[in-house]
């Protein structure tokens, strides 16, 4: 009799629990990693964190635009753990392990620094934790290795550099000399390497006058500016970002650096909102894709731009856009995997499989994970020139370059594609 009663109770409990399991978990914990301190916090980390807060809040309230209308991720509220990306790469690897093994996050979205992305990717693979890089740009991540759990929903530096070279060639067809100032680590070296190679394909006679590679966060650039002014090149290329970009503008502006040569700032959009008056007219600004002033007027951007500005009383910059699309892309894959899993919470392997080769719409337009065996996003890119209008910096002469014109084909290294004359 006792046995029968026990069996009956167990059956009732199992029956009660079954629908809960089938519906998926009540919450999904996401680890966000971005700069909250240091020179990269203000222009990148904080706008990205703000975007994460806004998007998570909207999704949890079921207020995202379709097809992001379902609450949170697959009906489960999103919980966030936000970690500071400042510090050494070793610190970041330790913090990543903490996120996975102590905070037990379901997935990680983060990383601005290319150096950190290169270090985190193999660790994510080792720990089998779905990780989406939202901003870092080095193309080496998926060119030098293949990953199952690692994704990047933002384009690489190759797109920025090739787009910059195309814009320069369009704006000044007779360009004969170029010079560069880039930070001496993965991002800066890759950006300059791709730009130089692309310019040599587009204008074979082009001569490199100087390539300055100061240390990241060096802060003082008077000698480099002198070398660039002395080089007297037609075009100066810089992929500077964070406080370094702002210091270069502040120190180079009074010396006429950006007036003497056409200056291309591939990540310059982050400075335009705060240093508008210091950036001379005619400076070529990139936003690492169709973000910020270059974002399309679609319903996702209307939702994001309006909501972000209402919440934070400032314009979102490209780091904000990249963060927003990183969260939205994984949401789609999560829900697709959950649906395929009969409504149960999907495993990281199932979400990763759903995220591979995905194509989705976001505030920056169409994102296709077409490269890196379906793990690396490609997008169109956009460049324009600055012009001060009524005391506010605007972009004019805007040119858009479709994704297949500025990104290498799938499974082809960026350097080989550029050197081969952009042949598919």
């Amino acid at each position: 009799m006792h046995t029968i009663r026990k069996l009956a109770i167990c059956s009732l409990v199992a029956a009660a629990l079954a629908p809960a399991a089938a519906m998926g978990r009540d919450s999904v914990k996401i680890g966000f990693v971005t700069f909250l301190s240091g020179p990269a916090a203000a222009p990148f980390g904080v706008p990205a964190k703000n975007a994460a807060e806004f998007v998570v809040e909207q999704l949890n309230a079921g207020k995202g635009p379709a097809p992001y209308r379902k609450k949170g991720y697959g009906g489960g509220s999103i919980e966030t753990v936000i970690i500071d990306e400042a510090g050494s790469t070793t610190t970041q690897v330790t913090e990543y392990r903490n996120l996975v093994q102590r905070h037990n996050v379901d997935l990680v979205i983060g990383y601005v620094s290319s150096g950190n992305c290169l270090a985190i990717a193999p660790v994510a693979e080792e720990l089998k934790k779905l990780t989406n890089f939202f901003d870092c740009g080095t193309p080496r991540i998926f060119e030098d290795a293949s990953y199952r759990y690692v994704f990047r929903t933002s384009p690489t530096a190759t797109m920025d550099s090739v787009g910059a070279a195309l814009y320069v060639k369009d704006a000044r067809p007779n360009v004969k000399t170029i010079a560069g100032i880039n930070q001496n680590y993965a991002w800066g070296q890759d950006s300059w390497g791709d730009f130089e190679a692309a310019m040599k394909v587009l204008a074979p006679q082009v001569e490199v006058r100087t390539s300055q590679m100061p240390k990241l966060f060096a802060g003082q650039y008077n000698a480099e500016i002198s070398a660039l002014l002395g080089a007297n090149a037609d075009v100066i290329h810089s992929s500077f970002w964070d406080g370094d970009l702002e210091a270069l503008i502040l120190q180079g502006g009074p010396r006429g650096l950006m007036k003497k040569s056409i200056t291309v700032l591939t990540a310059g959009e982050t400075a335009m909102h705060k240093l508008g008056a210091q950036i001379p007219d005619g400076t070529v600004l990139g936003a690492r894709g169709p973000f910020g002033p270059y974002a399309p007027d679609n319903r996702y951007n209307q939702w994001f731009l309006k909501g972000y500005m209402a919440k934070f009383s400032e314009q979102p910059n490209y780091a904000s856009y990249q963060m927003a699309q990183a969260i939205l892309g994984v949401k789609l894959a999560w829900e697709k995997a959950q649906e395929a899993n009969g409504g149960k919470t999907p495993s990281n392997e199932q979400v990763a499989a759903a995220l591979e080769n995905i194509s989705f719409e976001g505030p920056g337009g169409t994102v296709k994970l077409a490269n890196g065996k379906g793990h690396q996003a490609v997008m169109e890119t956009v460049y324009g020139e600055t012009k001060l209008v009524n005391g506010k910096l605007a972009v004019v002469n805007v040119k858009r370059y479709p994704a297949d014109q500025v990104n290498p084909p799938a499974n082809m290294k960026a350097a080989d594609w550029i050197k081969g004359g952009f042949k598919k």
Partner: protein
Amino acid sequence: MDPILSVIVDGIMYSAWLFIAALGLTLIYGVMKIVNVTHGSFYALGAYAGASFTGAWLARGYPPMLSYAVLAAAAVVITLAFAPLVERGILRFMYAKDEVVILLITYALFLILEDTIKLIWGVNPYFIAQPYALLGSFEVGGLSYPTYNLILVGLALVMGGALAWLQHSTRVGKLLLAVIHDPEVSRAMGINVGKYYLVTFTFGSMLAALAGSFTAPTVSVVPGLGVEVIVLSFAVVVIGGLGSLPGAALGAVMVGLVRSISVHYMPQVELFVIYFVMAMVLAFRPRGLFSLAEPRKI
């Protein structure tokens, strides 16, 4: 354009900035035998105070030419608010401890002050570009340089000269030299060593804050500003010899010129060249170029 001329001008300007940044560090080590990591924090505090005070000054429409005086005043005010507190509140209880322990304590204080800065000013950048462009520019060899850079060169000369004069030509300076030479005997002779430590720490920190304040118009003032400076300042004072004023001057000139040469002629080694010079100096002069002879106590 003559590249040699440009190398020299850039080298001098960078040296001046480095010397101002490193001067307080070598002074504090010379007197107190503290490798003071909080030096970077005072540099950052000076930059934030300079940006805030000057920003407020200019926003109220006061005369822009006086903004240079505001930069200096900001450094003095912020140092007086923090430095005596750090020295009297914490460091004075640690002087009996080993140098390495004090180094770790100043590192801990550096981290605390970094967070204090974030609490006060947040993480958004501060810009005060106006003083940098206000004085116009001058040309050397066909290249334009902001006249503001000459203020830094002048400031370096005045600070170095004043400190040398203070140490060697005044009664207070001579008493300070006695404290440097032997604090125990100085105490026995009636010198208030604690007071000299307080004044030295405050004055040395003020030099760091002045460096930060006068750098503020040329950079984006953001958290973490002091980290890079402390590393470079250490390189300069180690090359010159810890505690030596002429050593710091020579170290700054060497680093400034070598870096400038590499930027103009071999930019790919710029990152490495400063530390190569430091390694070479230490290989042949392990205590730096101007290391002071240490009396052996029996």
